[in-house]
C-alpha cells in the first residue's frame, strides 16, 4: 500500500477512545454498508461480475450471497452494458440495484446505458421512472495495476447531467455515503478509490458515525494560508502535504469534496474566500478533468478574493502509465507543495494585499 493511504489512516480519524471503534479498512466499511442496506430494504439487489462466491475482486461484496442468496447478490454474465441495462429494468420495476463495475475502465462498455438511460430516465418520464441505482466503480491508480486497471474516469461522469457522483476518502464516508447513495432515488456513480480500500480508520460498525449528506464537502483540515480542494484518493496526499507545508510556514486547509455532483459551492467558496488561494488536486488527467470545472467556478465566485490564480495538480495528460512508472504520474506531496509554492506569495507584500 502507498504511504499516502497509511498516513491517511493516521491523519483525519480522531483517536479511538471508544473501544467499539476499531481500525477498519475502507473496503470493509463498504461491505458493511451493502449488508446493512440489504438487510434493511429487500428491494436492494447487488449484481455484477464475481460479486457472489468470490465476494468481488476487492472483496467488497464478501458474504452477501451467503447471507442473502443469489437472487439478492447475483453473479451476472460478463457484459457490462447488459448488467447496467438489466439494472435499469430492475429499477423500472421498483428495485434498488447496486451494480459493481469490476474496474473503472471496464465500466466503459456500459457508457451508452449510463448516459442515454440511467442519467435520463427520470427526466425523460417527468419523474415517473426514477432510477434509484448505485453504480460502484473502483477507480484510480497506485495499486500497481496493469493497463486498464487504474483509470480515473470521473470527468466523464460529472459531465453527464442526471447522475450524482460521489467518492469517499474516509472509512466513515465509505459507509455513510454508500448508504446514502443506495437510499437515494437518483442514480449515483459511486467512485471507490482503489488504493484506499486497505486504508484504515477507527470505526464502529455497530454504530457507524453519521456523515454529512450527499452534496456537502468536508473541511478535513482547517488552515489559513491556502485551500487544497480535493477528493477521493488525493485526500490523504493533500493531508500529508498540509502537514509537510507547516515546515514552510504554510497553514493549508484541506477540503474533501465527497460529492462532485452535486457540487458544494458553499463550503468551497467560503474556504477560498477565507484563504485567498487555492489548488485543486486530483489524480485524473488535468486537461478536461474535474479540476478545470472546480478552478473555473471557484474563480467565478471568489475572483476578488484571489491573490493568485487557482492552480491545478493532476495526473499528466497521458494514458495511465504502467506500474513501474505510475509514481511519476500520480500527484504526490511534492507536486502539491510545488503548486502551493507558485501561489504568488510575494504579491502579498509587493501589492500590499494584507489578509
Amino acid at each position, binding site marked *: 500500500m502507498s504511504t499516502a493511504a497509511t498516513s491517511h489512516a493516521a491523519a483525519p480519524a480522531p483517536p479511538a477512545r471508544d473501544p467499539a471503534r476499531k481500525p477498519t479498512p475502507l473496503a470493509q466499511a463498504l461491505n458493511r454498508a451493502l449488508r446493512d442496506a440489504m438487510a434493511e430494504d429487500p428491494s436492494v439487489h447487488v449484481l455484477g461480475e464475481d460479486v457472489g462466491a468470490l465476494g468481488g475482486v476487492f472483496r467488497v461484496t464478501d458474504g452477501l450471497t451467503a447471507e442473502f442468496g*443469489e437472487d439478492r447478490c447475483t453473479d451476472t454474465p460478463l457484459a457490462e*452494458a447488459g448488467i447496467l441495462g438489466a439494472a435499469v429494468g430492475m429499477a423500472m420495476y421498483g428495485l434498488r440495484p447496486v451494480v459493481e463495475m469490476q474496474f473503472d475502465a471496464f465500466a466503459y462498455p456500459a457508457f451508452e*446505458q449510463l448516459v442515454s438511460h440511467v442519467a435520463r430516465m427520470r427526466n425523460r418520464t417527468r419523474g415517473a421512472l426514477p432510477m434509484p441505482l448505485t453504480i460502484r466503480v473502483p477507480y484510480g491508480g497506485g495499486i500497481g495495476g496493469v493497463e486498464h486497471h487504474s483509470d480515473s474516469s470521473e470527468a466523464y461522469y460529472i459531465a453527464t447531467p442526471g447522475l450524482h457522483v460521489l467518492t469517499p476518502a474516509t472509512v466513515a464516508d465509505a459507509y455513510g455515503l454508500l448508504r446514502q447513495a443506495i437510499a437515494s432515488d437518483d442514480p449515483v456513480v459511486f467512485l471507490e478509490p482503489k488504493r484506499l480500500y486497505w486504508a484504515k480508520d477507527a470505526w464502529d460498525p455497530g454504530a457507524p458515525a453519521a456523515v454529512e449528506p450527499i452534496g456537502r464537502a468536508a473541511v478535513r483540515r482547517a488552515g489559513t494560508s491556502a485551500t487544497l480542494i480535493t477528493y477521493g484518493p488525493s485526500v490523504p496526499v493533500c493531508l500529508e502535504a498540509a502537514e509537510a507545508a507547516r515546515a514552510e510556514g504554510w497553514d493549508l486547509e484541506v477540503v474533501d469534496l465527497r460529492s462532485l455532483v452535486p457540487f458544494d459551492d458553499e463550503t468551497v467558496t467560503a474556504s477560498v474566500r477565507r484563504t485567498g488561494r487555492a489548488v485543486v488536486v486530483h489524480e485524473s488527467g488535468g486537461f478536461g478533468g474535474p479540476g478545470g470545472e472546480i478552478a473555473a467556478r471557484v474563480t467565478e465566485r471568489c475572483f476578488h478574493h484571489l491573490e493568485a490564480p487557482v492552480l491545478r495538480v493532476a495526473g499528466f495528460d497521458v494514458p495511465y502509465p504502467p506500474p513501474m512508472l505510475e509514481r511519476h504520474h500520480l500527484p504526490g506531496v511534492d507536486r502539491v507543495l510545488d503548486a502551493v509554492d507558485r501561489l504568488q506569495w510575494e504579491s502579498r507584500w509587493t501589492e500590499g494585499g494584507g489578509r
Partner: protein
Amino acid sequence: MTVLAQSGAYRPAPPPAWRPRTDAAPLLPDEEPYRLLGTGAELDPELLTTLYSQLVLGRRYNQQATALTKQGRLAVYPSSTGQEACEVAAALALTERDWLFPSYRDTLAAVARGMDPVEALTLLRGDWHCGYDPRATRVAPLSTPLATQLPHAVGLAHAARLRGDDVVALALVGDGGTSEGDFHEALNFAAVWRAPAVFLVQNNGFAISVPLAKQTAAPTLAHKAVGYGMPGRLVDGNDAPAVHAVLTEAVERARSGGGPTLVEAVTYRVDAHTNADDATRYRQDAEVAAWREHDPITLLETELATRGLLERDGTDLRATARDAAERMAADLRERMHREPALDPMALFDHVYAERTGQLREQAEQLRAELAAQEDADDARPDADDAEGDAR
C-alpha cells in the same frame, strides 16, 4: 425456475465424458415462416375480427401521423405501414399487467394496447421525451438508441419474477438492431436468468437504407436464438393471426417459467424510414409493389371473406372498422393541431429528485430571461401573439 436453482458452480465432467448440455433442435426455427392465413387452420372469429379492426385502425393511424409531419405537427414520424400485423399482434398478445418495450417505430403497438395516440406521439411531436407514464401504461419509453431497451426488458422481467409477480416483458427491435451488442447481452442475460421475456424482431428488410444482406449472414435472424439457448421462432409478419399465435405461445412459455423466446417476424417497411428519408436512393419501387401485394390487411380481409366473417348482423366489418379509424384520425388531427403548452422551467424539474444548487441557479437565470422577454413583448404593440409560438 429461479436464479438460485441454476446457481451451483458449473462442474463439467472431464472432457472424455463431456457432452453438449442440450440438443439444439428444439431451439432452431422452422424452415418456413409460420403462417395461418390461407391454411384453413381453426381460428377464433372474435380474434380475427378484432385483429382486422385494429389493423385498419393502425393503417389509418400511420397515414394520419405521416400527414401530420407534412403539416409540421410532428417533428418526425417513422411509419409502421406494412408492419401493422406485428404491432397489433404484439399488443394483443399481452395482458394488462405485462410490459411492452417499444422502439421508436412502435407507437402503434402502444396505441393498440389502448394508449392515447396523442400521448404516444409526444416524443415525435417535439414535445417532451416521453408522453405517457410507463408505470401506468406498462409501456416503456420509446427507445431511440437501438436495442438498448432489450436489457431493460430483461431486468424488468427478472425483477417481476423475483417479486413473484405474474408479468411478462415483450421487447420490440428491428432487424438492424439485432447487430448491436446490447441485443446480444440482453438475450444472453434473459436465457441465463430464464427471465419471462419475449423478443420480437420485426425484420422489415431495412435498417434505414441498409438491406438485411449487409446486416447478417445468418440463415434467419431467428437462428440467433440457438446461441443463447432459447427457442427461435420464424413467422410471417404480415399474417396477423400467425404473429399473434407465435407471440401468445412465447408469452405463455415465459409466464409459466419456460424462459425467453426470440421471434423473427418477416415483414416489410412499405414507407420510407421516416418522412425525412428518401427511399428511392436505395430500393426499387418494384420491390415495394411486390410487398404491397402481401399486405397484412388485404390478407386478413381475404381470410375473413372466405370465412364469411365480413358481414355480421347486417353490418359490414370493413365499414365499421373504417369508420372507427376515421373517428380516431379526426380526433388525432384535431388534437394535434392544438399547440401543447410547455413550460420552459420544466427543463429543470426532473433532472434529479430535487434541483441541485447548480440547477436552481440556472432556473433563476432562465426565469429572469423569460421575464425580461415578456416585458419586452408586452412593450411591443403586437403583444397578443407573443405567447403561443412554442414551436
